[in-house]
């Protein structure tokens, strides 16, 4: 026992998922015949685009609320800000200011609402967040496909559909393209490293580490362990859970701003699609469970998951002569990882509760 630090699980279970992902990625990489430099570049790009989004999932998991699939709402808040910036034809600096202000305010507001909803649906948080994500997407689509041009009058006619109602599917963000992601760009041979952006992602990671060390973070951990225990300790459970969701939505919103700015185009109706599933699958691929997650899981998960994602269509093409098979494999991996993690986690939970019971008896 003395080998382990205080408070740590004395018998950490070995998680096979990252290893399986590593083997799959390596095999697919071998068959894809892609160059290592290309794959590395792609992984770095994905790391910048999706890194913060994956980090957004960590706090709710540790607060015992499972995977927060409603990070999609945070993404939508960011998109609202972006559309407004394009609508008012703002420049790079003032535009970024507006985007982040609108995004932050909206995501705090919606985070509080989601938190209140989840407090009513204790122990069924994950399915509730999925449905909230779907609902928010349709409300968002309704506003921008129907509301714009009928109820809301746009100032920038260029982004509207020719019928005058609804925004175009694609909105160009040329004034924001390459504003922040080319700063401090280093090149090593053929590998490009945008240092500032990577430091930004690490900054978010440090922030989450710090939050988990504060009083609030400790409260999250206690609630994650047991609701009854937290209540007995006098923690205002409902309020702390709302804080967890607000933090998650806020980080997701900022992460999505990174994502869109890096792409340089806004796919108005579909840019947010599947961000929840892919972020969740990436986190779980790194060895997190739906009960416990850490920053290191997020980082290793992004690298493992996305390297598999990049190489699998080409591998499918080379081995089976059909790129669609690689595509199916990707979706299967994304959904399957989540399903697997859910099945495994409840098995562990059962064991844990049995252990607790026996302890009580003796």
């Amino acid at each position, binding site marked *: 026992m003395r080998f382990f630090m205080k408070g740590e699980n004395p018998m950490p279970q070995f998680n096979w998922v990252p290893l399986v992902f590593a083997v799959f990625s390596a095999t697919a990489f071998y068959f894809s015949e892609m160059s290592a430099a290309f794959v590395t570049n792609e992984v770095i790009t994905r790391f910048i685009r999706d890194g913060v989004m994956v980090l957004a999932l960590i706090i709710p998991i540790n607060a015992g609320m*499972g995977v927060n699939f409603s990070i999609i709402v945070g993404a939508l808040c960011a998109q609202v800000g972006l559309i407004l910036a394009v609508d008012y034809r703002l420049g790079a600096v003032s535009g970024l200011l507006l985007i982040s202000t609108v995004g932050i305010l909206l995501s705090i507001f919606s985070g509080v609402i989601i938190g209140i*909803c989840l407090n*009513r*649906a*204790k*122990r*069924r948080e*994950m*399915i*509730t967040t*999925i*449905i*909230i994500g*779907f*609902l928010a*997407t*349709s*409300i968002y*689509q*309704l506003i921008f*496909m*129907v509301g714009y041009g009928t109820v809301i009058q746009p100032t920038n006619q260029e982004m509207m559909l020719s*019928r005058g*109602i*609804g925004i175009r599917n694609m909105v160009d963000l040329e004034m924001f393209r390459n504003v922040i992601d080319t700063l401090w760009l280093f090149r090593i041979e053929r590998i490009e490293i945008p240092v500032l952006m990577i430091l930004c992602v690490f900054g978010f990671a440090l922030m989450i580490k710090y939050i988990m060390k504060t009083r609030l973070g400790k409260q999250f951990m206690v609630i994650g362990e047991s609701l009854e225990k937290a209540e007995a300790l006098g923690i205002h459970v409902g309020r702390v859970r709302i804080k967890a969701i607000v933090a998650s939505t806020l980080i997701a919103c900022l992460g999505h701003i990174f994502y869109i700015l890096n792409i340089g185009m806004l796919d108005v109706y579909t840019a947010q699609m599947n961000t929840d599933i892919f972020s969740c699958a990436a986190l779980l691929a790194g060895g997190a469970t739906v009960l416990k997650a850490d920053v290191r899981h997020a980082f290793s998960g992004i690298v493992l998951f996305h390297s598999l994602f990049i190489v699998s269509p080409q591998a499918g093409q080379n081995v089976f002569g*059909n790129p*669609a*098979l690689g595509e*199916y*494999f*990707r*979706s*299967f991996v994304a*959904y*399957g990882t*989540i*399903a697997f993690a*859910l*099945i495994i986690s*409840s*098995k562990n939970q059962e064991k844990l509760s049995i252990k607790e019971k026996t302890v009580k008896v003796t």
Partner: protein
Amino acid sequence: MKRVGVQIPQFFIIFFLILMMFLAFRLEIPLNWIISDALVRLVMNGVLVLSLVPMLRAGIGINFGLPVGVIAGLLGLCMSVNMSIKGLLGLSAGILFSIPFAVALGYGYAGILNRVKGKEEITATFVGFSFIPLMNFFWSTAPFTNPAMLWPIGGKGMRPVIGLKSYFAKALNQLWMVEIAGVRVPIGLLLFFGMLCLLLFLFFRTNFGRALKAVGENEQFAGLAGINISRVRAWAVILSTVIGAIGICVYAQSYGFIELYDAPLMMAFPAASAILVGGSMGRHTHIIHVVIGTFLFQTTYLISGPIANELMIPEVAEIFRLMITNAIILYALLYEGGKSHAAV
């Protein structure tokens, strides 16, 4: 625990229906067309909604893994088309072929759901989601030989949409179709649905059906009474999967096409929404909820299409449908959660 009166979802959907009826009247959409189509759509989706009942009754929750049953049904249908069996016989063959698949898949699915007690709904969602791409592998390499089902170029892999016109499209729809005062009443179709409902009703009257309900009401008492809980839950899942397979067969013949690949991905959500509109609240689910819910829900679906077209924004109908679907499911989740919270 009998609920009386109209809850918010029912109120909302009825209000919406009246509003749309009014609009339809203003836009001069013929009423007899609406009623004829509403009757067809009731059965077309009704069987899929019916498939949720056994799992709800057994306390497993909403079957968000409906794609598992749907895929079993699609396999049966494809086998029937592959043998070029035509007419009602083709449909029956499709249903018959799909049942063994449904039982086998349902058995595995039940094994998973029995491991994740208390988290069935979220796990079911992802089991359903991950099963679809897995089956996409199969569809693109399936050993079927009927050229009507395969890609015209290359001759390998299934088409995403297979027309049933020369096989059994609308075979059941047109069985004993009678026209009464301009309204076309598909008596054969309605009888088929009625029979399925009756069979399920009678099933819950048998000893096994009572055991299933007992597990749903209170698992601990059921266990003390000597009921093998895992086995009963497994049978509930299998039954749901089998009815789901029959449901997609009826749906496909009514629609006139078999849709493969990603088409079943989101099928569970409208079905779940329909049964909730009917007044189902978890374990307190009755067959009548299925009928009322599907009718109300599908009729709003039906009328919203032409109205949106008239208003020149065709996407609105689809967005509204999704919004209503998810709002109703969310309401049910929050309502039940609020109740259990009050109980604690």
